[in-house]
């Protein structure tokens, strides 16, 4: 009873109206947030005097999750747009501060749920940098290969959903068929289809078996043919080209100012790819190109992503070749830094103790250590900043997620565009709200 009396619920309940009022104030609309039906003296308001404010989302089918855009419309033209995110906020950074480093890793699957493997790798690399763990070669190659498979999976969803938003529903089903193959790979390699959680601090959970290896091999052989088939339908399709060309234009200065990353950056002619310029894992040992376009519109980003998928296949093929020659452990054989193998846990007492201790406290980086590690996730720079206080849980964990920074450009892009362009723009930014809202 006392808690209820002490808490001022009135203020809490006012959040939603105030939030909406703030959004409409940013739109500078004559439109109040509850629609006016009469102008004070009882006479109906002139509809032509009022500007139309359209609330798109968070349950709108084209907003890729729970993005909310409030747009001010003049006919079909969008005059101003305010983007509202946070509908999928789960306080994931705070959760990280209450979990041990290894315990938090499965949570990263839920951030960018279209490429969970990249998130696992990003988190593990950041923790390994913080604690100074060197992981075995084979684990590095496996991580790299699977991250590229995850990149294809993410780009396939972007492609399918982007086309479906534009009205071509069949492509969506075709890309999902290819994604089904990728899910089969993850199922075989990691044991789960969506939330893979295969990476471990100090390596990966399991080695790739022959079945998984052959699945990836088959995929790398089959996929370029299906991609070529889709390109045949789309690359010279007048409707698709016209819907993309000049849409969502961002100049090189604009993208840098907005802080966009990934394919959105490279579509505007900025040659920046962390895989090339700050190589992590074994990216300095493989041969691949960074596709760059200078046009800066949705079409340029479309071609950049298509080419990236081809480059990923190239990397996967090289990884497969390497993995045939490189043998060895897939996890650090140091019980203070990584889980011992199951063989040790089940058949030796030390192993069991180490397993218990690792689960209980886990890896403990030195007090005061801080590290930032970023990887080139499918959507751009995915970085984790970690600060240690010497215990098994991070004192501070900060996520630099690409979807969040890419969405900053949406308001600029939308101004002056058409209603029909809206879906193309959201598609071309390719946000995942699990990651943007954190």
């Amino acid at each position: 009873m006392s808690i209820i009396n002490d808490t001022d619920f009135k203020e809490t309940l006012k959040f939603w109206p105030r939030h909406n009022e703030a959004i409409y104030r940013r739109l500078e609309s004559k439109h109040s947030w509850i629609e006016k039906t009469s102008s004070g003296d009882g006479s109906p308001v002139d509809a032509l005097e009022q500007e139309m404010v359209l609330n798109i989302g968070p349950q709108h089918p084209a907003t890729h999750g729970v993005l909310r855009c409030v747009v001010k419309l003049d006919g079909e033209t969008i005059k101003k747009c305010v983007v509202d995110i946070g509908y999928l906020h789960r306080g994931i950074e705070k959760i990280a501060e209450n979990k041990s480093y290894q315990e938090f890793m499965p949570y990263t699957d839920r951030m960018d749920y279209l490429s969970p493997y990249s998130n696992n790798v990003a988190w593990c690399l950041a923790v390994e940098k913080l604690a100074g763990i060197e992981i075995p070669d084979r684990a590095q190659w496996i991580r790299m290969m699977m991250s590229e498979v995850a990149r294809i999976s993410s780009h396939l969803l972007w492609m399918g959903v982007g086309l479906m938003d534009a009205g071509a529903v069949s492509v969506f089903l075709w890309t999902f068929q290819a994604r089904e193959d990728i899910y089969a790979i993850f199922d075989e390699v990691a044991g789960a289809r969506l939330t893979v959680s295969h990476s471990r601090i100090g390596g990966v959970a399991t080695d790739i078996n022959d079945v998984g290896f052959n699945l990836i091999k088959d995929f790398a052989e089959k996929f370029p043919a299906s991609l070529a088939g889709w390109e045949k339908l789309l690359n010279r399709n007048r409707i698709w080209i016209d819907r993309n060309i000049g849409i969502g234009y961002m100049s090189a200065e604009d993208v840098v100012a907005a802080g966009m990353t990934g394919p959105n950056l490279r579509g505007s002619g900025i040659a920046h790819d962390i895989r090339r310029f700050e190589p992590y894992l074994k990216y300095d040992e493989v041969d691949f190109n960074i596709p760059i376009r200078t046009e800066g519109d949705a079409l340029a980003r479309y071609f950049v992503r298509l080419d990236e998928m081809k480059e990923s296949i190239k990397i996967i093929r090289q990884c497969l070749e390497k993995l045939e020659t490189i043998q060895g452990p897939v996890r650090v054989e140091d019980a203070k830094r990584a889980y011992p193998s199951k063989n040790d846990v089940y058949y030796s007492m030390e192993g069991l103790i180490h397993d218990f201790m690792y689960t209980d406290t886990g890896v403990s980086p030195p007090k005061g250590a801080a590290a930032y590690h970023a990887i080139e996730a499918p959507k751009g720079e995915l970085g984790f900043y970690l600060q240690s206080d010497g215990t098994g849980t991070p004192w501070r964990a900060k996520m630099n997620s690409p979807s969040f920074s890419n969405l900053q450009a949406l308001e600029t892009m939308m101004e002056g565009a058409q209603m029909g362009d809206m879906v193309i723009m959201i598609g071309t930014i390719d946000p995942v709200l699990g990651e943007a809202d954190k």
Partner: protein
Amino acid sequence: MNLAWYWTALIAFGIVNFLLISASVLVYAERKVSGYMQNRPGPNRVGPFGFLQPFADVLKLVFKENIVPTAANSFVHSLAPMLMVVIAMASGALIPFARGVVIADMAVSVLVLLALTSISVYGVTLAGWSSNNKYSLLGGLRSSAQMISYELSMGLAVLSVVLISSSLNMVTIVEDQGGGYGIFAWNVFRNPIGCILFIVTAFAETNRAPFDLPEAEQELVGGYHTEYSGMKFGMFFLAEYVNFFIASFVIVTLFFGGYLLPFESVLLAQFPGLEDSILLMIMQIGTVVLKASFFAYLFIWVRWTLPRFKYQQLMTLGWKYLLPISLVNALLVAIGVIIFS
């Protein structure tokens, strides 16, 4: 009350039922064809090969609650879907299905057909306006803009056909295509540009992809029929399928020889007994349905392949390309008619 009255009533009964059943067959066909295009089996649970799926869908729609938004204009909200269905069905009266099998064989049936297609836009616009939903309103506005842009080109394409056969009567237009050259007397060979123009505008008039801007599932969330549920939504659904089947029939009637069998004159010269027989009538009905089914398939094929147009693209195509081409085509056909006649 003479015998002709009963004959017309019988045909009318037959055609209305045929159209209603064909709508459900088309729904099944669309889902099945799209399934095969997308490497999936499509409906296959209700009945053998999923044949009963459309009937299950209709049952579901009938039993669903009919929701009218509080702020909607309920009279217009109910009127709009009825308007759509009635107009779609009424167009069926003008299509000749075989020699002598037509409900309304009037002297100006082509004009009536154009008038009916023009009125059908009111169904969409009124539905969009009366729902009192911004998405629906945008859908309704898009629809009216689309109709204005495409009606002119469609009218001019029809005009070129009317010039060739010098008649506004659909039956005369069909009979005019049965010249001595077999299938080469079809208007598609005498007036190919007009044929392509008419097919494109027919896609636009029926609001089918890639011209489905008024409903735009992704951006407008269904557009004009967002606020409809139950059988009222079912009526829009029915009207859409009847509309595009009728459009297929009109394409066939105007450009592909209508109910005429290919090389019918040769066939009749060989077997004079066929003339005015029941067998010929059945064959003619089969021919026109087969030809129309091909175009219905074309409608489905295009829908599941192409992305949707953007608003400006649609306007550019309509005013900058189709209208000048159809004007020039009508002029050329007129000159041709003068020279050859």
